[in-house]
């Protein structure tokens, strides 16, 4: 398995994999927060903004490790 960090090329422009993982992670976290808001699960969190921050980090790490491969 090739674990060497690789970049994404879009139209000849190379993007760092961390940027891609972060962007996807942020989108996934926002969608999750939206969903939790809609089904009113947000009320069980002490401070939801911290949860969003945590979700962004978790998704970025997961996507970076298993999908984008930082």
């Amino acid at each position, binding site marked *: 398995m090739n674990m060497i960090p690789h970049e994404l090329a879009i139209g000849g422009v190379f993007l760092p994999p961390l940027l891609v993982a972060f962007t996807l992670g942020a989108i996934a976290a926002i969608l999750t927060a939206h969903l939790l808001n809609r089904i009113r699960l*947000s*009320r069980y969190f002490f401070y*939801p903004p911290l*949860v969003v921050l945590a979700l962004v980090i978790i998704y970025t790490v997961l996507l970076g490790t298993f999908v984008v491969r930082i």
Partner: protein
Amino acid sequence: MTLSTTAKEAIKTALAMTLAYGITLSLGWENPYWAGFSVAFISLATSGQSIYKGAMRMLGTMMAGAVSLAIIALAPQNRWLSMVLLSAWMGFCTYMTWGEKHPFFWAYSGYVCAVVTMAAGLDPVNAFNTAVLRSQETGLGILVYSLVAILLWPINSRPAFEAAGAKLASTQQQLLKTSLEWMAGQRNPETAQQLRTQEIQEQNQFGQLLAAAATDSYEIRELQNQWRLYQRQVGQLSEAMERWRENLAGEQSLDMPSLMPNLSGFADELDSRLTQIGCMLANQEPGQHPSAVDPEIDEARFRHLSHFQKAALTAIRVQLRRIESLTRSLFHSACYIKGFCPAAPELGDKPPVIKEFGLPDPDRMAGVVRVMLIMWIAWLANIYIDSIPGGADGVAVASTFGLVIAGMPQVSVWLMFLPAFISTLLAGLIYILVMPQLSSFLGLGVLLFVVTFAIYYLLAAPRLNVAKLLAISMFMTVISVSNHQVYSFMVVYTVALMLLVVFIVLAVTAYFPLDLRPRQSFLRLLGRYFRSCEYLMDALSQDPQKRETRVVRLRKTFHMQEISSLPTKLGAWSKVLSKKALPGTSPEQITTVVTALQGLSYRMQQLIEDRGHPQAPFLVQELRSDVAAWRTKMTDAFGCLAGEPSVANQNRFHTELTGIMDHMNMRIEETVDKAAGHISDQDGENFYRLMSAYRGVSDALAVYVASAGAIDWAPWREERFY
């Protein structure tokens, strides 16, 4: 073909921009966009406004240059100390920017200092040159735009200023007339709230245009002290009318036309004065001068009123006398300014200046903390994250955005991100696809002219002002014009990523350390409002004739400022509350709550003022325990409301409050009967004014409790992500 004003203004800005770039490039100066920024940011509706803002920008830039050089000299080779000093200065400038005096000066002093210090930090040897270059390019931009604004379709501020004055006088006249008709029982002032909002906006506009007209009109400058007196008097009249209306709202049971027989004549006289003021501001000679008029009370009918009604009527008469006196002063000021009266009115005492450093506004302090935090996060990211996009420039950009948003925490950071990001992408397309085709300044000049014109023409509406400034700033930053022009996709890419990083930092500080979500902010401010009321009510137990310590005086002034400013802040937050997130709460209900708080503020201020007047010792002695019982009840109620926005059992609260007021009324009756013949007229008036103020606070609190009780506060407390 006639060009519209928008097109003319856009052409002026575009021409000034092209000239500023042309001169900077021909002189071989680096960073010509600094001159471009000057042009872009001082382009305003009239030449006076532009010159005033330009002067503030120039002075602010010079101050920033001096401070940044001092920071570099004090902390050479020490980036931590340098950052401590810079963030302290930025914090100070942020606090001052959102105050009342010279906001533009302090804003430029802050963010230009960040730009120069960050730019010079990388190259300390040339720090002096950087600061000087920034100052001279700023000066060049101001000079070029000022000359263009003066020579090409000049728009003098004076006509706009005079029109604003006449409009303000007309609005005040309508408001006074509506309220007097309401007092006479003729109609309900449905339009009063709308007129009041209009009056506040027109007062702000009048103040801004006064500063501008004093810059570009000799006639206004010569009489600017008189104009400022007129402005102060207009503000005092506005506040006096507002307090009077608040009193009227609680006294609808009184038959005013029979209690005040000359009310109609009094109303006609005041209406005539304001009409004459409007005429004078339109350069017409006044048809008549003010005649002596006093709101008389029918003594026979007065004797048959209850003591609280007598108190209310006395308070209303005092307020009418104040309005009469202010309209007379206003008439004399306008008469002298317009040259119809020979004698200059007394400039009078300036309003007391409250020492700002002794009494920091908590919201402005929160803005200071936010800006300093933004700077430090951006700075630490710059140091510890390798090759972060933008580098030190990112710190300067983050600081600038931080300073702008510190005073308007209601505005969502992401609302600014979209125009900034789209502008960067569009500017990137021009930079990559168009600019490489240009080979001389002729082509570049045409491009600068066309793009600047398009931005200033298409985004001319006032509500698009932020988008306009972001678009032009991003355009100038991305195209990065210089005499040795290079084209690299990395420029666009770096700017776009830097923006992303900057906005992430800004967004983080909207949640940490202070939660700036609308619902939470609204509840927090509401709590602060009632804590201030509680303190002030508790402080009423002190003897008013006894000298207060400095600490007590400062605390009292602080809480007075809080109760006068918080309803406006709550009004601003109420506009951004999400309707979806608050089921069961309509915008009208929130407006009613904010209006009730504004009324309560006026009543509290009135009570504190009226309590300062001397009272007959006999009355004070007799009613001491009743007043203390009322005060304890109110202090407890405010204390509870500081924790919960509504009262748990409204009916019980109303019953208790009414019981206390009825008992007090009975005791007043007994005491006044006992004191008959032993108290002077002045003591009697002071006593009734104070009684009216006590009842006013009770009534205003009851109105708030009723309006807050109609809202379901449970969803407000439920945690949500947005």
